[in-house]
């Protein structure tokens, strides 16, 4: 016998699965009650779950919990996470071992994915740049803002970090040789390797979906153009043959196309090129100054930066319909959008602070990492 609440859960789950993860998801948001997780790590785990679920856009945390109750125990590196229906019957139970933050992040993703079909983003890692020491250095952290690690202490310029989809390597640009070169940091071994040091600039690396190649801006042939090169270093293959500056590549999920920035008309705009054909076409964003494109993991949309009345704002373009929406507004700058794996939330920088944006609800959340002067976030998938 299926209780009424369980039936509701199942119906809403099935209904969500058959809809595309867009505006409809919010209509199907589930109402959950978060009971305090018991145990010596319980309070921290509870507050981390609360943060992730309230930002998910698909979970309403309510005192009544019409659709279910979250409970469990977190002690000594073990989290037993339980999801009950409103009558107290167990719906899901899962045991996690490890750092309490990993445990909480994984349980939060399980709740979101089980109840809504939307991918959870709590386990996302973010690479970013901070100038808090007076010089730009490379950092990594959880999407919650916790576990910040400063990776470099080079006391030189750096920028343009790109974390690979698995969250295991970061490609970035550093001037530690004096020139802008591309380096890859292995996050398992904390070893760093220079993989592009051609004459001129080597910058703006973007991981191919398979993690084996990088697209980047190189200028050794006499003009800044987009190239694809092996992630371990090697011979670059030129992709663009254009006048003007080509920069900021981003891959399609099927690795067949790249969207990048070209400024040949005198102002930067977004271009789309099919790698096998080598023909580039301008994207009709309607924005005269567009940079920093990022292709969503589901392939459906592009987030980018556009200049509006002297301010940088985040825009999203739906590639099928061509619809362009402005996500941010106001008298601040918003830059460097990077999609998370659910193709709904993205992370951007605003005046030194990193923000999580919900492209559907329009909500924004400060990622409180207690690090000042942050920029250029890049999210693992």
């Amino acid at each position, binding site marked *: 016998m299926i209780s009424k609440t369980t039936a509701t859960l199942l119906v809403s789950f099935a209904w969500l699965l058959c809809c595309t993860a867009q505006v409809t998801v919010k209509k199907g948001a589930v109402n959950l009650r978060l009971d305090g997780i018991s145990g010596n790590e319980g309070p921290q785990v509870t507050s981390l779950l609360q943060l992730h679920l309230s930002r998910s856009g698909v979970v309403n945390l309510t005192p009544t919990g019409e659709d279910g109750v979250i409970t469990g125990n977190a002690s000594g590196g073990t989290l037993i996470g339980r999801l009950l229906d409103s009558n107290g019957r167990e719906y899901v139970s899962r045991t996690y071992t490890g750092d309490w933050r990993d445990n909480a992040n994984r349980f939060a993703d399980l709740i979101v994915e089980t109840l809504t079909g939307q991918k959870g983003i709590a386990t996302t890692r973010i690479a970013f740049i901070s100038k808090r020491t007076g010089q*730009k250095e490379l950092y990594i952290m959880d999407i919650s803002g916790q576990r910040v690690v400063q990776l470099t202490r080079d006391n030189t*310029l750096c*920028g*343009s970090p790109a974390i690979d989809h698995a969250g295991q390597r970061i490609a970035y*640009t550093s*001037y530690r040789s*004096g*020139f*802008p070169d591309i380096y890859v940091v292995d996050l398992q071994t904390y070893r760093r390797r220079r993989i592009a*040091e*051609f*004459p*001129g*600039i080597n*910058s*703006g690396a973007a991981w191919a979906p398979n993690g084996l190649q990088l697209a980047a*801006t190189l*200028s*050794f*042939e*006499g*003009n*800044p153009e987009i190239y694809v090169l092996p992630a371990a270093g090697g011979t670059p293959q030129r992709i663009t*043959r254009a*006048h*003007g*500056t*080509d*920069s*900021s590549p981003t891959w399609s999920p099927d690795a067949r196309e790249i969207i990048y*920035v070209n*400024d040949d008309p*005198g*102002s*930067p705009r977004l271009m789309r090129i099919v790698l096998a054909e080598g023909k580039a076409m301008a994207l009709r964003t309607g924005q005269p100054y567009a*940079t*920093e494109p990022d292709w969503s993991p589901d392939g459906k949309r592009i987030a980018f*930066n556009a*200049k509006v009345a*002297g301010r*940088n704002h985040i825009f999203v373009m739906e590639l099928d319909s061509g619809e362009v929406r402005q996500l941010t507004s106001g008298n601040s700058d918003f*830059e*460097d959008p990077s999609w998370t794996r659910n193709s709904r939330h993205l992370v951007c920088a605003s005046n030194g602070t990193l923000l999580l944006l919900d492209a559907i609800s329009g909500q924004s959340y400060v990622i409180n990492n207690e690090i000042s002067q942050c*920029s*250029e976030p890049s999210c693992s998938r």
Partner: protein
Amino acid sequence: MSSTMKFLNAPSRAVLGSLVSCVVVAALVGVSAGCRSSRPLDMGTYDATIPMATPAEEDLLLGTPLPSRGNFDPQSDVSYGEFSQHVSQRIQRSADEHTGTEVGKIYFATNSNAILPSQRPKLELVGNWMLQNPTRSILIAGHCDERGTFEYNRALGERRAIAVRNYLIGLGISGDRLHTFSYGEEKPAVLGTGEAVWAQNRRAEIGVINE
């Protein structure tokens, strides 16, 4: 010399757009060869039946490949003040109010890598210096104002440095002596906001590589 520059810059765009005839290709390949050796053009010496340009030949027209990095540090082994004493009255007359008279600093319009007429006398001085000091090489560092995004500015700065390099190649200087790179918006000459500040930050700085 000015005719050489024309082929390196603006008209090459139009010509490249219609790369259909072998004759045009032959003529263009000839032009690029002419630039390198600084010889006057002689269209009549090129055979109209040579094969279509390979991609490598096209690339020569879009930009001259950069020399290998060499063994110098852009921070410690380059003197950016080298040209500061070479200020002539001609440069003072041609410089506009924002962009100063320092020979080693070439200024640009917003989002542009075009060499402004007001900046040409400085580059001619640099070119003369390089002709008189044939063993020396220079590093051209491109810079931008703060308004663009980091990565676009890094690429735009490089394009400005390359525009300066191409201009000097047009003056007869070997590209092997002309190194480029870009700081993007990371090293402004002047802090602050407003067009007067931005105009001073949109620049290419020319430094002489120490011997």
